């Protein structure tokens, strides 16, 4: 039963990654592209957290109060692996910076063109950028 739940969670996460990549590539709305990107980033973070997780009981926070052999063995028995969580919190902070920057760019594009539809913006870009015939 646990293996089934485990497998379905991982499959659901991979499916979410696929859907969010589709959203990034195919939705014409810039805001929806940004939302798909945040979903993609969060799903990746969740997958990495899942790598450090294991089903144990009783569970305690991964804190090592002092360094001794007994404390260490208790830690190994009751705590999940804290390092993926440390990696993920760094990635969350970095992801916030990128998302805020992209949001600013979307707002600036809306100010300049009055639309967030990528097709309409594409029509109004300067002709020189297309290269070739003018």
């Amino acid at each position, binding site marked *: 039963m646990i293996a089934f739940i485990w497998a379905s969670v991982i499959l659901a996460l991979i499916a979410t990654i696929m859907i969010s990549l589709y959203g990034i590539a195919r939705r014409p709305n810039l805001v929806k592209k940004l939302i798909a990107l945040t979903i*993609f980033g969060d799903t990746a973070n969740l997958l*990495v957290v899942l790598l450090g997780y294991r089903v144990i009981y009783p569970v305690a926070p991964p804190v090592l109060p002092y360094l001794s052999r007994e404390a260490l063995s208790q830690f190994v028995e009751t705590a999940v692996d804290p390092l993926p969580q440390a*990696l993920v919190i760094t*990635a969350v902070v970095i992801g916030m910076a990128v998302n805020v920057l992209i949001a600013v760019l979307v707002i600036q594009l809306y100010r300049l063109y009055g639309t967030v539809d990528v097709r309409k913006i594409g029509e109004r870009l300067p002709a020189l950028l297309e*290269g070739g015939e003018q």
Partner: protein
Amino acid sequence: MDVVGLTPVIPIVFAFALPLFSIIVRGDRKIIQAYALVGTGLTLISVFKLFQLVYSSDKPLVYTFGKWVAPIGIIYEVDRLSALIALVTAGLMFLIAIYSYRYLEHDEGLEWYYTLYLGLEAGLLGVLLTGDAFNLFVMIEVTSIAAYALVAFYRDRGDSVFAGFKYALIGAVGTTMYFLALGMFYGAFGTVNFADLSAKVHGSDFPVTGSPVGNVVIASGVALALATWAFLIKAAIVPNHFWLPEAHPAAPSPISAVLSGLVVNVGVYALIRFLYTVYGGSLTPELAHVVGVLSTIVIILGAISALFGALMMNVQRDVKRLIAYSTIMHMGYLFMAVGLGTQLGLEAALFHIVNHAIAKALLFLAAGVFIHAVGSRNVEDLAGLGKKMPIATFSLAVATLSLVGIPPFNVFFSKLLLFNALMEKSFALAMVIVISSVIALVAYMRTFYVVWLGKPRENVKLREPMSMSLICLVLALAVIIIGLTAPLIIDKLITPAATQTLDYQNYIGVILELAKNLR
């Protein structure tokens, strides 16, 4: 704190202090420029000292943050490969900072420009010096965020903002892929330190972190595929190239030079670290098969992007876009060489990284002098300006001839090395270099002919901006000098660096010695 740990800290401190500093000096442009020059100059001195230290020692230098030794803490581990690229990076960043002042004379926001510029330099140096795969991810993000914002620097121009948006979106997808790959590496090997990963991959033990878990071959395959995809996006290899021809031209010219010369190297350097340090040398047959398949894919994509970049150069009217496609071509060469996995391939890749960085920066800066004069990127608007600006024209000529691969200039010698390295694998791959160079020659000569001999559209009065042209002249002389002393440079700098990078046991051994004291 020794020079290894200090180097990336200098630009990041200068970057964070700049917004406050600019309030104190009330946005005085001259003082901000002096501040930026001090920041990049100190970094250059520090990197030069580091370069001397690394080349005089047999082993890679290590810096442990807070004395937390790997695999517990984050470390910096600098070998000759990273020190050489770091020296080129810091040198070019310093020269381009001088150039930027005059180029941005009509634009607001010099303080924000330099904040991002110094942040970009810190990120680039961090990527080169780090010995930890997760720290590499953080530093790639630092580099990328500064680069996205600098591409959109002209925030009133739709094409710049849109190019910045596109670059940021695809770049964020790429770095998230790399993060997923890191999760896989951690899940399988229990570590993200390069030396520790390398030890586990080669089947030896490492203190503290235990032995690998699960099926190492499948985990390595998936993680390497995701990481390589991220690096292909960062280095703009076909089919992940589409952001580059819009992002690089849309930035101010000095930033185009930084992006095309230095930032794309991040992808190549990171792939070298993974393929040569972590998965280098003798592996178990299954792992060797995985790495072999990956290398073949990298070589094929590199060859396609070399030919594609060369062909696309010929249909461009925007001069900066033309140069941007040339960057795709040269990145293709680098990935072909990296995929070979031989000593000669690594030497060729390293020498070409150095030469391409200098020559491509020079080409963008020389083109920037003309673009600054007329305010247009269309080749036909630049017609006939060449005779009025002799120094910039000379630099443009040196840069184009060098990038095509004409003998006395530097890129010829690295193309020769590339040709020899690819010849060992197959004749067809070596011919890709020759054919794409010839196609690129046509595009460059057309541009150069128009700029030098074309009829001016209107009678514009122009004076050559000396501070910009002199930087171009310095870089042009560097191109010629590196070309003339190429055998010496290959002998003294390139070969020792490649030999040290291939010796992954040495790379592991340095960390292992530190980690033994841990228990």
